[in-house]
């Protein structure tokens, strides 16, 4: 378990003529959360997408547990959870149904576990309504429930606290706390500081324009 380590070495990525990632280096190991900050357009989302293998860097490499992620992408993906800007939910299904289909494709999801996860994010009120009737904050909470249900060691989160109130942000913080305490790895791009119980345990990295 302690070989959980995500490393990015000299990562370069261009979007057209724009050199978005210019030799980025990062490393985050078991029990650590790397908080990624930076103004809009500095490449936080691009870095996250490169780290999970969606984007292909022109230079450098990303390794997970010592192995290049490109060597066996499917196995790599089975060990990670990625949450982008928008919660990945179908608007015509309920939150409960969404999680059933979303997580069910990855692992067998007992009904009890699903219910508990929804309860934890405060979903008892809205879990059985179509997602299109939910507020942005509720949708975000549903996505977070999915995150905890994935049971994977690596979390890649793009602005996980968007649309959440203070209570919701604390919830995110507690999830990350639990995750890293269990030995997991987290990389989160944020605009505000994560509300973890021990802010000093966070590693920090900032992307800038120069």
């Amino acid at each position: 378990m302690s070989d959980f380590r995500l490393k990015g070495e000299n990562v370069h990525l261009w979007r057209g003529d724009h050199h978005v990632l210019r030799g980025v280096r990062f490393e985050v190991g078991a029990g650590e959360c790397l908080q990624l900050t930076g103004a809009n357009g500095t490449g936080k989302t691009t870095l996250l997408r490169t780290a999970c293998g969606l984007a292909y860097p022109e230079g450098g490499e990303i390794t997970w547990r010592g192995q290049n992620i490109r060597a066996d992408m499917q196995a790599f993906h089975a060990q990670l959870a990625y949450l982008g800007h928008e919660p990945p939910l179908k608007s015509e299904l309920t939150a409960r149904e969404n999680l059933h289909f979303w997580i069910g494709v990855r692992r067998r999801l007992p009904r009890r576990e699903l219910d508990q996860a929804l309860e934890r994010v405060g979903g008892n009120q809205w879990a059985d309504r179509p997602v299109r009737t939910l507020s942005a904050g509720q949708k975000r909470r549903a996505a977070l429930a999915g995150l905890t249900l994935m049971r994977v060691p690596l979390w890649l989160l793009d602005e996980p606290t968007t649309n959440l109130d203070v209570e919701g942000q604390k919830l995110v913080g507690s999830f990350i706390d639990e995750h890293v305490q269990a030995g997991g790895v987290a990389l989160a791009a944020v605009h505000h500081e994560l509300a973890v119980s021990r802010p000093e345990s966070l590693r920090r990295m900032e992307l800038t324009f120069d």
Partner: protein
Amino acid sequence: MAWTWFHRLASPPHVYRLSARLTPWLAWPAALLIVAGLIGGLWLAPPDYQQGDGYRIIYVHAPSAWMSLFVYTTMAVAAGIGLIWRMKVAHAVAAASAPVGASFTFAALVTGSLWGKPMWGTYWQWDPRLTSELILLFLYLGYMGLRSAFDDTQRADRASAVLAVVGVINVPIIHFSVVWWNSLHQAPSLMYLGKPTMPPSMYVPLLLMLVGFTLFYGAVLLVRLRGEVLSRERAASWIREAVRT
């Protein structure tokens, strides 16, 4: 040794210089062969016992049709290489080839139609070869249309590469189905000039035109490739040096 050669081919600056040097070596022989082929075909070759002088358009039609397929295959192979090994230059070759191939296809259709007029009395018949050429033209237009729909060059390259590979697999299937379809009905088709029955004075100019057209494509490709490489690498530092010379 072979690997370095292949690796160098992947380097845009190298390709840029190499294509400039190679172009005359393709362009001049192409011109000579085409002129020789035209003289041989339009002048020296005897008239066909069935079609008289009307068959002579084959000297432009057949090479055009051949090139339309050859270029599509080249385009698909280059695109496939670019897709699998992520070689920018391979994608540039595919992008540069597409309009050339489409032009050959169009030329084949026009010359085929002109050939048909004295033979059938109409400018168009649903002959299997003309129909296949028409569908091939649509494949080219689709490829070019997909390319232009993307703003990001890299995405345009990769998406159109998938399309080109899918297309090239489909070309034999489409051709087979069109021939099959045509055989079901008694439709007139282009006079088939079988090669074994053609005297050398007839098929030698044809071969000259075929090779000439191929070299012509090579020369045009190199010229267009330079332009492609230039526009794709415009932000790179080697460009300023190269353009100055």
